[in-house]
């Protein structure tokens, strides 16, 4: 029987425990998985380093471990000290820990700094076939390169720091075949929101998803990262896409990507990283996107999605008591009336950024919509936060920053920013935001804040009009 892409990467990373027959039997179906790349950030790592210190353990492979600051870094006035004392403390802790344990850190003064899931690929650390973990659920992003990448908790961060391994049960496999052709004005973000709508936020729990089909092959690496990024919003452990020429073109000549003989050997293996024709998945789903319409979330869960041409649902549309309750609860929180037209939802603020949509292509899409136009008076703030210094530099080279600034948008320094609002980029109570990020949970962008998830182009257009619009009519 053939193997799936996931199985090929999984099997390559199993530590052989034949030396320990008794323990092997005890572990039953669990395996010891070797980790090739461990990424760290300031929020989920301090307690892990503290654990090492308390037990007198070392970082086993500092050369496979890289850290960045992204979650609570300020996105402006970086020449001044960080005003929030606790954030500053957390950043200083990371610096101190990396120094003490010999881990490479890209701090906010480093050219290599940015959001962990943007800089991994950019630096050539993310490679096909690698196992990659990070104390962050959106680690699934790196699967766009054919890596097996997933988020872990802080205890597991400590575990990987100390052992470079994790004890894991083998997940199930699901293949999503995106067929058809993406219509004009639609993007990877619309594809993944449509999928989450279909699967629900727990629809892929326990599975590793492989995204396949012509529509995936057509996507750029940035688009593929957007898709894999939100695998976790469907509950999946990871999302993966088989590497192809686009992948190889992206990773070659990056600061950390392999060269010479290593590259030759790696490439020979990478060429085999695709699911065999006779591979069997535990579940297969097909989604045709030829008729897809721009997607927006209306509620407080990433699967509460509607087309731009639709209306906000009413509780009657729930299939059971539980669903009806969920809809009522979300309507109450978001202060939306049932049956409100999607394009009559008015915004206070707009956020373009996050590990989902802060790459150069995302910024190009947003800029192309607003060129020569101004943000609506009613929109108080439009934040554009590039994913990394490299993205920022490239955008400025292309003059995108000028387009944003002329439209009245704010052009900031890289970081996670308003996606989770741990820094000063936070919504005021009650404010409504169009956001290119990945979660619309209650209070996510600030207490009593209301978040609508959309593509960068949809967010930019909403900033111009003050409410959502059908982007297909704008281009």
């Amino acid at each position, binding site marked *: 029987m053939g193997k799936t892409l996931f199985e090929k990467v999984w099997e390559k990373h199993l530590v052989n425990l034949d030396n320990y027959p008794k323990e092997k039997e005890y572990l039953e179906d669990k395996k010891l998985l070797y980790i090739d790349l461990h990424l760290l950030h300031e*929020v989920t790592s301090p307690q892990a380093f503290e654990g090492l210190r308390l037990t007198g353990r070392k970082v086993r492979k500092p050369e496979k471990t890289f850290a960045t600051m992204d979650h609570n870094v300020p996105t402006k006035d970086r020449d001044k000290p960080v005003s929030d004392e606790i954030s500053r403390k957390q950043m200083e802790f990371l610096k101190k820990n990396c120094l003490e344990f010999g881990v490479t850190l890209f701090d906010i003064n480093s050219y290599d700094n940015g959001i962990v899931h943007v800089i991994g690929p950019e630096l050539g650390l993310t490679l096909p076939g690698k196992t990659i973990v990070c104390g962050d659920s959106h680690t699934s992003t790196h699967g766009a390169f054919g890596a097996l990448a997933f988020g872990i908790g802080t205890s597991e961060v400590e575990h990987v720091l100390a052992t470079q391994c994790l004890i894991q049960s083998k997940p199930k496999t699901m293949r999503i075949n995106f067929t058809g052709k993406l219509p004009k004005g639609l993007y990877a973000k619309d594809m993944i929101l449509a999928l989450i709508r279909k699967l629900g936020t727990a629809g892929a729990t326990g599975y590793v998803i492989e995204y396949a089909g012509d529509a995936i092959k057509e996507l750029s690496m940035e688009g593929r990262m957007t898709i894999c990024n939100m695998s976790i919003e469907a509950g999946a452990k990871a999302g993966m896409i088989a590497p192809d020429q686009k992948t190889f073109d992206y990773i070659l000549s990056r600061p950390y990507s392999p060269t010479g003989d290593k590259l030759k050997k790696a490439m020979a293996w990478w060429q085999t990283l695709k699911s065999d024709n006779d591979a069997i998945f535990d579940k297969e789903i097909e989604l045709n996107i030829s008729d897809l319409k721009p997607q927006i979330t209306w509620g407080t869960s990433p699967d509460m999605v509607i087309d731009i041409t639709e209306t906000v649902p009413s509780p009657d549309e729930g299939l059971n008591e539980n669903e009806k309750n969920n809809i009522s609860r979300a309507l109450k929180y978001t202060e939306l009336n049932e049956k409100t037209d999607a394009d009559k939802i008015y915004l206070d603020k707009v956020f373009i950024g996050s590990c989902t949509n802060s790459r150069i292509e995302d910024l190009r899409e947003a800029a192309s919509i607003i060129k020569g136009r101004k943000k609506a008076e009613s929109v108080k703030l439009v934040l554009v936060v590039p994913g990394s210094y490299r993205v920022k530099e490239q955008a400025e080279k292309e003059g995108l920053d000028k387009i944003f600034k002329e439209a009245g948008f704010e052009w900031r320094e890289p970081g996670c920013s308003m996606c989770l609002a741990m820094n000063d980029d936070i919504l005021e109570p009650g404010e409504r935001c169009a956001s290119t990020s990945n979660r619309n949970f209650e209070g996510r962008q600030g207490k009593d804040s209301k978040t609508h998830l959309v593509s960068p182009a949809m967010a930019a257009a909403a900033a111009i009009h003050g409410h959502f619009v059908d982007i297909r009519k704008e281009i």
Partner: protein
Amino acid sequence: MKPFEKITSNICPLDISNIDTDQIIPKQFLKRVERTGFGKYLFYDWRYNKDKTENTDFNLNKPYFKNAKILLARENFGCGSSREHAPWALKDYGFEVIIASSYADIFYNNCFQNGILPIILQKDEINKLFKLIENSSENEYEVDLENQSILSLKDNTKFIFNLDKNRKEKLLKGIDDIGYTLQFEKSIVEYENSIEFF
């Protein structure tokens, strides 16, 4: 980690699906660099009103549930962020057992790392348990990990739950995962010596 022992407590119900980690512990409290002290921020936005007074309608604030060690919820509990601050907050507050029909993967793993037992029951059993609690002002239950059971001390209603043998033993014995993995040192070194290109 302390070995997990039998727990007798009333059950605090939270009749909400998809309770995410942003609700369990809002992000403004993630900046601590310790593992402790998160309990007072558990479910912060639900527990407190805008003027920071206690929201008396929220179950955790009702006198009867104040000291509950068992939390009952619905499906997909702990979805969202990987933050282990969520189980730290639950544990620090005093919860040792969670009962739900399903959990998000990362949260589920994080519970075991912190000596919290996340029990999975079928949806109809969850419904039954919610009803039992709703109709009774006394709802003392005993959670027995060894026998994988939840027993009502009032009327002896019993629920049996499944649990991976490995995880059960680690909880019962309070085994440290890292120490456990480090015993495979020889195999890990062998693997490392065989790495070709990463």
